């Protein structure tokens, strides 16, 4: 193969670059650039039609100040903001912390750990709609599985979990944690596995085992990945509709909505699309900084999901 000579030359960068640029210009007569553009065109088309245009359209729909006055005066919106903050704070952090701990647990060797991991990722593999509906019925006050178990084991009559704002919101948060902990555990597990063995081995020799090894060796190496996962997870959770919609349905009495479900309720159930867009857009002060930090992080560290 002729290619071997190119690879050999590759050891000397200056010469390689000249050979390459000559071959590109000579061999392709400048057509490469055109081809490269043609290859990105499908994605650019998707981006412009389905991302850029709707975003601009949405900004235009939600550009009237009076919308926000109406929205902020709405008591449902006020409780929605509180719910969204709680959902983000607890949902993201508890989940990521659990994932961090469990990823360490799954580092243990043995076939049964692998088998356990396969069962552990089941919540992620089962479609959201199926499991969230199941959790909804599980929490039914009269005949739900949870209360049946509580009665069978402890003779406790459990409450109607979804009829109270705080327990319903708690149920949504726990459902979210249940659904997504496996995914982030796998990501962090991959991150832990990518730590070179020599580092953890020499740390052990130096006496950094257990908690100390984690604080001084493992976590500093994982910190960047953990931060990026947290940022991404926050963005994903902000757009999450299914957990709230199926577990609590926004109820009781619209007290457990989050911004995503409230936006869709306003737009499609009470047919006020502009008010829906306004609800969604009121999250922009949070989303924009998140996106900027995330883009910086992803570019500088080359960590990705």
């Amino acid at each position, binding site marked *: 193969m002729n*290619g071997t000579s190119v690879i050999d030359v590759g050891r000397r960068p200056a010469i390689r670059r000249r*050979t390459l640029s000559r071959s590109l210009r000579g061999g392709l007569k400048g057509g490469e650039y055109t081809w490269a553009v043609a*290859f990105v065109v499908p994605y650019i088309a998707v981006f412009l039609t389905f991302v850029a245009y709707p975003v601009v359209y949405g900004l235009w729909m939600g550009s009237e100040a009076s919308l926000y006055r109406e929205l902020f005066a709405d008591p449902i919106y006020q409780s929605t903001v509180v719910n969204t903050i709680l959902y983000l704070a607890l949902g993201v952090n508890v989940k990521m912390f659990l994932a961090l701990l469990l990823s360490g647990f799954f580092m243990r060797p043995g076939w049964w750990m692998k088998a356990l991991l396969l069962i552990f990722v089941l*919540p992620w593999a089962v479609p959201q709609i*199926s*499991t969230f509906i*199941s959790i909804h019925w599980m929490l039914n006050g009269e005949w739900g599985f949870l209360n049946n178990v509580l009665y069978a084991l402890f003779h406790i009559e459990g409450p109607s979990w979804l009829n109270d704002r705080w327990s319903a919101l708690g149920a949504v948060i726990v459902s979210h944690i249940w659904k997504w902990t496996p995914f982030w555990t796998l990501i962090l597990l991959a991150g832990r596995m990518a730590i070179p063995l020599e580092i953890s081995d020499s740390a052990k020799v130096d006496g950094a085992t257990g908690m100390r090894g984690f604080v001084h060796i493992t976590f500093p190496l994982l910190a960047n990945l953990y931060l990026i996962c947290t940022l991404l997870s926050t963005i994903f959770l902000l757009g999450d509709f299914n957990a709230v919609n199926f577990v609590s349905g926004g109820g009781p009495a619209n007290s457990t909505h989050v911004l995503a479900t409230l936006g869709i309720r306003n737009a499609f159930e009470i047919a006020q699309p502009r008010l829906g867009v306004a609800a969604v857009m009121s999250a922009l002060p949070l989303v924009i900084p998140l996106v900027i930090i995330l883009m910086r992080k992803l570019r500088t560290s080359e960590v990705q999901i």
Partner: protein
Amino acid sequence: MSLARVSGGSVLRTRSRLRRVLIEVSSLVLVVALLVWSLTPVYNMLLIALDPDEGDIEFEGIIWPPNPSLHSFHAVVTQGYWLVEDFWRQFGNSFFIGLMTMFLTVLIGSLASFALGRTRLRQSWLLANAPLVTYAVPTSFLVIPFTRLMASYDLSNTLWAIVAANVTFAAPYAILILRQYATLIPIELDQAAWVDGASPVQVYRRIYLPLMTPALAAVGTFALLLAWNEYVYQYVLLSSTRNMTVAVAIAQFFNSDEAPLNYMMAAALIYSLPPIVIFYALRRYMAAGLTRGALKG
């Protein structure tokens, strides 16, 4: 343990053995807790689906099926109830959306990642960042303007509208993963082909695609699972029974008062099977796709 080694005292040795036993016991407890935690909602689906009664069901005090029956599965599979009378057609719709999403995501993602990662377009900051921007726009935030647009393109109530939405959100992830994975393939291979006079299309087809197969499989699976999990766009855009997907049909079940729960859960379980099968069949590829990119540099 290091203490025991240093002093060699028997008290310390028993203490370290005790500690080891404690660790084993607590990890066993953790294992059981994880199993219960992971399986309970799935078990609950099965419990309700195996109930033989139609209509009102009394589950008072039941934590396992007293007389399990496959009746509800039979009813769903044979479409023997008005809410499931188009079940297989809806299943086909879900499959169509899933497969099209997968195909288009892999196609668009691989083309774009090839251009962005392996040609002179590499220097284009704007193009490289566009996928990241999408990645950062929450899915259900776009749904309202998106619906308006689909209505103006005359695509409301079509499966293609759903495919478009799914591809929009799956493609950025695909491009990120593929670009990362492509860094493992030596650029010299491409250069050799350029020197031999290969066209970009040939380099893409003969070198890039074959070597990228594991990552393409990971990305395709991801797209399929995304499509299978997606509900908001389907709920908002699909209105006629024949164009509905299983997800929307199950939600309709969920929202109607007199619907038999066992049928609903049977339908939900059948709907869950394809992603579970695909997930476990392709998990090696998924792991490759995830781990290769998870921590670099």
